[in-house]
């Protein structure tokens, strides 16, 4: 069974891009454009890894992360930050990697494989 990645981003074009890259590499995907939807999908879809945007309307990425790690069932899902913010590597300390938009898709895939294989 292919592994599933939850894409969290409020920009539909970027969601589409990540879906393309990940599906072409054989991953299953599910997507959310805000923190509330993302938390619901986290429970329902049980993703193996999450790509997380930082800046979104209403609540921003770090809040999703804080809420996620309070849930013992999902608090060890690896998170990769994908954002246009500068200094993003500081926003979520335990993120396995962080990529600044615009990002290199090859490097993103490498980081995902590394996180899932370890």
């Amino acid at each position, binding site marked *: 069974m292919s592994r599933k990645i939850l894409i969290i981003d409020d920009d539909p074009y970027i969601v589409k891009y990540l879906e393309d890259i990940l599906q072409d590499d054989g991953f299953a995907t599910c997507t959310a454009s805000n923190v509330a939807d993302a938390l619901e999908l986290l429970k329902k879809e049980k993703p193996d890894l999450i790509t997380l945007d930082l800046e979104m309307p209403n609540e921003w990425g770090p809040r999703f992360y804080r809420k996620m790690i309070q849930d013992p069932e999902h608090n060890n899902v690896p998170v990769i930050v994908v954002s246009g913010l*500068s200094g993003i590597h500081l*926003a979520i300390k335990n993120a396995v990697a962080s990529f600044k938009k615009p990002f290199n898709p090859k490097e993103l895939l490498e980081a995902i494989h590394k996180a899932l294989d370890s």
Partner: protein
Amino acid sequence: MSHLPILLVDDEEGIRTVLAITLEDEGYPVDTASSGNEALALFQAGRHPIVVTDIRMPGMSGVDLLREIKRIEPKTEVIMISGHADIDVAIQSLKHDASDFITKPINMDVFTFALQRAEERSTMRRQLEEHTSNLEALVERKSAQLVEVERRAAARQLFEGLTASLEAFAANLDNMSMFNQMPMFVSIHNRNHEVVAINDHYRQRLGDLVGQKSWSMFDDLLNGERDCPVARTIADKAARRAEHVVRCINGNHHAVAVDTVPITASDDEVELVLEFMVDLREAEQLREELRTTQHKYQQLFDQTPCFISVQNRDFTILSSNARHKDGLGDLEGGLCYERIMHRASPCRDCPLIKTFEDGEMHQMETVITNRKGEQINALIWSAPIRDTSGEITEAIEMITDITQIRKLQDRLTSLGLLLGSTAHGIKGLLTGIDGAIYRLGGGLRNKNDARVEDGFNDLQHLTGRMKQTVLDILYYAKKRELNWKVIDVAAFALNTYTTMSAKAEAKNVLLELDIAKNLGSFKGDASILASALGNILENAIDACNGNEPDAPGNVLFKITGDANQIAFQITDNGAGMDHETRDKLFTLFFSSKGIAGTGIGLFVANEIVQQHGGNITVESEQGHGSTFIVYIPRELSVQV
């Protein structure tokens, strides 16, 4: 240079730590707090001149904190950090007197610049305050000296009126206490030309001459006793004034003005003589000092680069400096609130009212109109003027013109906002373009036509948006001259329609064109007006994004006209707007599109239409779509 202390408030630990470290590297002493309550406690103790706070925090919000801090110390510079979707709150913060706000993502250059400005403002404010208190001290000194001189004059008057009432006094010679306060030599002599009583000042300077002859203190009586003022007063039974030289205990000689008054007994004979002597040199010195002080004060008063006036408790302008007269007109004798503020009653926040109440210095910022009819941003300071009994009788009002500073600040604030918001927008667009190219490339490799087309459409749309964003910024950054030409209405409308139809198609929105017949022409800048209309059309298309499949998006672009103007009507059946959105529509950086909007487009569109002498009307109902009508006059003569 050492920096002013900063209190940094953010609930996100990561951001707080990074900012604190960066600021400390720059040399700012930094205290940090993770919540509004913690920040308030620190502020109470430290009174940091600069506070930087995040707007969104659990518990006490940034705006609540701003309000509290401003209540405790209005002079604090508070810089708000706002997220992307916080423009409303940012505007609200400005109303509560936030000094600045910067957007996330925080660009450190923009941030340090905001801090430098806050520091500058804080320092300038302190200097102004010192300046005002120096002035106050000067005014106090001057008043004290005036009072001194007046006291002397009063003593003389007192002395001249004394004769009549002194008969009763003569019975009680020991009572010199009332003279002891006088800054002159007062003595009483009997008809045997002997000193019988002297005041303290006399005793200290000329010695205890009680019992001595009335002429013994003088050094210049050529004819001895016959020239003595007391003796002559007794002989003539009349008051007299003369100038003589007295000898002090320390051996110095002083020229004095001598006034002598006879005190007659009931038998009409002179019983006693009251003698007053004033040191002439001291009086002259005092007059000179007063003149110099007055001169210096006047110079300072006139040359301080502020409008200064002195007002009484009714806010009547008693005097004003040269710049005041030059900038606001000669308003002396008029009421401040009537003549400067054009009001029927004193201003609600008037700092003078507060100064008269508590004797402290106060400030307020407001807008006033100068003599040329220009609006100026004014920082108004007030300080009390007290009389000798400590009563506040008048107040000094100092108005500083800070228009240039405010203009610059507004411009910089909006540029800062613009940079933050567009940099982020462009990064998103670039990533989207990467995605479209990836999709296009994949489609080409796998010969998947649907994917190629999809990627191509995205690419077209995203580059279009990028182009528009850049054009918007350029337009905002630089006011361009309009290129006036005669424009054929129908051709212009068709052109605008064609540019937008691809976008509409890509979004599955039906864009219809309805041009009335014989519309003729108008004068304007075709390319720039087309971009304004394009902006509104694109918004209309975007507004149909959420339409259900059974009610597909529909935008009507309808052009009509009469003899004077052309009306471009754009009607959509999309989401519509609530009242608040409609009110803020044309404000810079307002966007209802979240990440997809920069908040510049409609602001610029409105400016363009206004430059053409036209206007835009908006009707909208939530859930039922919107109608924008852009009216453009046909002729340049009615255009602005």
